[in-house]
């Protein structure tokens, strides 16, 4: 090694310590991502493929609306499931494991603020979720594309006589309206946003929980309450319903403390053909950012004081 090289290393090392460094965060994020990838999580794609191809083969005898809908339902269902599982289990698996294995010692005794460690982990998980959703989307869209053309050909085949160009185009319009469309991307984004909030929940839990199992269970409970709490909110701001003061109080507390995950459920509407305006997608994205920020902050407050 030359003297010059040595100097450059020294310069890098001696440069003033930064309170927040993106490269450190990215190093942790990429490390987390690599870790999950090498844990062979992407085998789930096989399951996903089996599911959507299975959904296709099983329901060939149904009307094309049913077939396309089931394909979308199964795909979105599997995507929601996988994304949420990755978010919660991934976060719950990695942070307590770092503590248990004392890997955290060697990381935090480097000039790495604890906040960066948390943000890095969260970003790593989100990156994994994003990549897996991307892969699933590609698979899903490809199958949908192939099926809608297949269905069109089958339907034309089943028509009596020689169908007119007009009949074909109206059929095509009917089928494609239920097939591959831009709106589906919004659905995938919404699935991602919900999973991101779930990951942030698991992050908070894992900073005070000591075991993986505890983190997973508590996060799942919060995840579930997060879905049911909009019902609670309905009681809190009743629409003509009369409820006891105590009930309303409790429902209000639940609504205030727990996240509202129901709000991200737009996939059902998208599958039945409705569209989400861009402004609403921005709203949901902003809300997710808000959640991520607050939950990262809360987990930092807990984690900063944690005795390791």
């Amino acid at each position, binding site marked *: *090694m030359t003297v010059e*090289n040595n100097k*450059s*290393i*020294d310069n*890098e*090392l001696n*440069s003033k*310590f*930064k309170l927040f*460094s993106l*490269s*450190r965060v990215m*190093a*942790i994020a990429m*490390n987390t991502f*690599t*870790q999950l990838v*090498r*844990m062979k999580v992407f085998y789930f794609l096989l399951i996903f493929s089996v599911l959507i191809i299975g959904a296709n083969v099983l329901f060939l005898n149904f009307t094309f609306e049913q077939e396309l809908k089931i394909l979308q339902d199964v795909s979105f269902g599997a995507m929601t499931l996988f994304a949420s599982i990755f978010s919660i289990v991934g976060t719950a698996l990695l942070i307590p494991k770092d503590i248990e*294995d*004392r*890997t955290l*010692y*060697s*990381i*935090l*005794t*480097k*000039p*790495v*603020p*604890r906040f960066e460690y948390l943000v890095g982990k969260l970003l790593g998980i989100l990156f994994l979720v994003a990549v897996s959703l991307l892969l699933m989307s590609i698979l899903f869209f490809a199958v949908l594309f192939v099926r809608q053309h297949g269905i069109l050909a089958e339907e034309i085949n089943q028509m009596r006589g020689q169908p007119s160009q007009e009949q074909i185009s109206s059929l095509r319009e009917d089928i494609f309206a239920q097939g591959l469309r831009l709106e589906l991307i919004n659905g995938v984004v919404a699935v991602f946003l919900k999973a991101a909030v779930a990951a942030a929940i698991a992050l908070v839990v894992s900073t005070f929980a000591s075991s993986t199992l505890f983190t997973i269970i508590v996060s799942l409970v919060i995840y579930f309450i997060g879905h049911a709490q909009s019902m609670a909110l309905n009681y809190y701001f009743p629409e003509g319903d009369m409820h006891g003061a105590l009930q309303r109080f409790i429902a209000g507390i639940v609504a205030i403390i727990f996240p509202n995950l129901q709000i991200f459920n737009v996939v059902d509407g998208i599958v039945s053909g409705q569209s989400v305006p861009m402004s609403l997608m921005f709203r949901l994205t902003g809300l997710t950012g808000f959640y991520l920020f607050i939950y990262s902050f809360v987990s930092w407050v807990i984690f900063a*004081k944690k*005795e*390791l």
Partner: protein
Amino acid sequence: MSKDLPTAVQIKNLTKIFPLPFRKEKVVAVDNLSLSVKPGEVYGLIGPNGSGKSTTMKVLLGLISATSGSSTVFGMSSTETASRGSVGFLPENPYFYKYLTGAETIAFYGKLCGLKRKAIKERTSELLNLVELEGARDRRLAGYSKGMLQRIGLAQALVGRPKLVVLDEPTAGVDPAGSRKIRDLIMQLKEQGITVILSSHLLEQVQEVCDRVGIIFEGKLVREGSLKKLIEIEDQTEIVLENAGSDLLKKISDLVNQESGVNLVRSGRPRTTLETLFLKETGGDSKDARNDS
């Protein structure tokens, strides 16, 4: 911290109390402990398991906070993240991400120290060479032996060119040959003028490399000083004679009895301890793998 004599590590009146969950009692892990380490020194913390060595190190490294007292590294408080910029730490029984290869591990920690891509590449080769893991560079840590893990841990600790290296039980659980290698590496660090703090519950290890030693017992620093001085029993003098007949011994005993205030404590054949014997026969290595929590 005195101004004319810059210290590498200064711990002042450190106390750490762990509350026990669901109980009223508390555990005092470290009790009003003070110590300082000069730059370039190799300092050994020794004491039995649970005596507070690890706790002291954790406070020094900012992993836990002190209940009272202070701890500084090169003048910077341990509570500041920036103080870790000049420190390298090898935890006890280090466990790294086993899915990473040796080179990736060093690179990862290099990035955390703020190194750039090119510097990381050079530093990785350099360190793997130093700890003699060049051959295992692209193997995942899952396949490393304990000694190899210890050495990759040391390399990881050195990636940021620290001025202070903290080693917690560096040879625990490592086979004799590996243990020897690690000791050599510590000597190399010493030559480079790097300050080293190491903890151990094996006196023999400490003896070979340390300039100064502190003995911790039940959270208190009971003795501190240079190794030679510590081992001396100040008010006793030992005479070992070869081929002495019983007559001579009688004479000596009488002579001693004539002096007032002097007692003959014991006489007889000197015995080596089993440990010393063992270490002597096995070339100074220890197979002891007990852990200190």
